[in-house]
């Protein structure tokens, strides 16, 4: 499971306050994110992907001062990842066909996804924990009702009812009705 913006940001903030364990947790959580970021853009160059992931981890570590605690973490992370990739091309003197440049620079899409995820997080935070967890498990992480029930330690019908009521409350909220 990929870490959420809120988790990454909490680890980052704790790391900035000197918590080494949180910093390590952050870097570990970044590995899969960066892997998919680079793999999508450097098709087939597995060794380069591995190098870039490590270089980006080092940059995240050494340039921590440039992170603004008031702003989203993922936007900062992907801006650094993008810089590392452009620098990588520049160093190798790789010429990228112009058709591919767009695919390389689509980091905005990532930022959109991450801010969409933040929106979802904010909306779910308005529900009861049980409803939020049920929706997250079954509709975001793609667990079956049985798996979600087992994970939460409640009955399957309880999960179904929580999802149903949660969605009803969200729909009401999005329509602007007071809950």
């Amino acid at each position, binding site marked *: 499971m990929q870490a959420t913006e809120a988790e990454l940001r909490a680890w980052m903030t704790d790391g900035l306050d000197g918590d080494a364990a949180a910093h390590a947790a952050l870097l570990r959580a970044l*590995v899969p994110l960066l892997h998919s970021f680079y793999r999508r853009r450097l098709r087939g160059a597995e060794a380069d992907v*591995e190098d870039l992931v*490590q270089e980006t981890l080092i940059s995240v570590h050494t340039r921590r001062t440039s992170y603004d605690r008031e*702003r989203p973490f993922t936007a900062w992370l992907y801006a*650094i990842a993008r810089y590392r990739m452009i620098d990588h091309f520049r160093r190798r003197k790789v010429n990228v066909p112009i058709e591919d440049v767009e695919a390389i620079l689509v980091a905005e899409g990532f930022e959109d996804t991450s801010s969409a995820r933040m929106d979802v997080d904010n909306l779910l935070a308005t529900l009861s924990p049980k409803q939020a967890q049920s929706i997250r498990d079954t509709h975001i992480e793609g667990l079956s009702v049985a798996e979600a029930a087992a994970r939460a330690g409640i009955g399957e019908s309880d999960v179904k009812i929580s999802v149903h009521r949660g969605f009803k409350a969200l729909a009401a909220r999005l329509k602007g009705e007071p809950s």
Partner: protein
Amino acid sequence: MNTEQLIQSLSSHVPVVPRHALGRRIGLGLLSGAVVTLVLVVAILGVRPDLHEAMHGFSFWMKWIYTGSLGIAAVFAIIRLGRPTHTSLRGLWLLLIPVLVLAGVGISELATTPSSGWLAMWLGQSWMICPWLVLTLAMPIFIGLLWSFRKLAPTRLRAAGAVAGLAAGAWAATIYCVHCPETSALFVLTWYTLGILLAAGVGALLGPKLMRW
């Protein structure tokens, strides 16, 4: 080295980064460079003998407010460009305000001076060396700012170099005021600004080379 080893070695040293670390870092780089520049001005060029009286006059403060406001604006631009995100430079047009205000003062100077005195007023006694002195005195501050940038993450290197040069030039000119005896707004508008722009140009040339990370 595999990634897990890398993470472990990176996490073995996690210094605290206080909330305003970025501003502090830039301030420290700027200040250490400025101290060197001040020492150079005092030791080599010398403080103008009438500094005390000059500080009660209009032209001294006109110069200080001009170069100081450029310096403050440039520092804000550095704070923006020191982060990888939100690097828009839209606010930089504010730099035109001090330039236009000084131009206004210059026009009123022209109006109150007979036209035979315009050239002497514009060139002063030091127009040939003033821009070069400002450029030279900017270098310690620029080096201080390069040190600041080593912990920052600029993604637009040429722009970052240019605003670092601009800040260095503006603060060097501010310090140079304790030596420079010129009093005319037109002089400052031309030759100080030229020196500051030279420093910004050098910064823009060097930025992509020296600020890469």
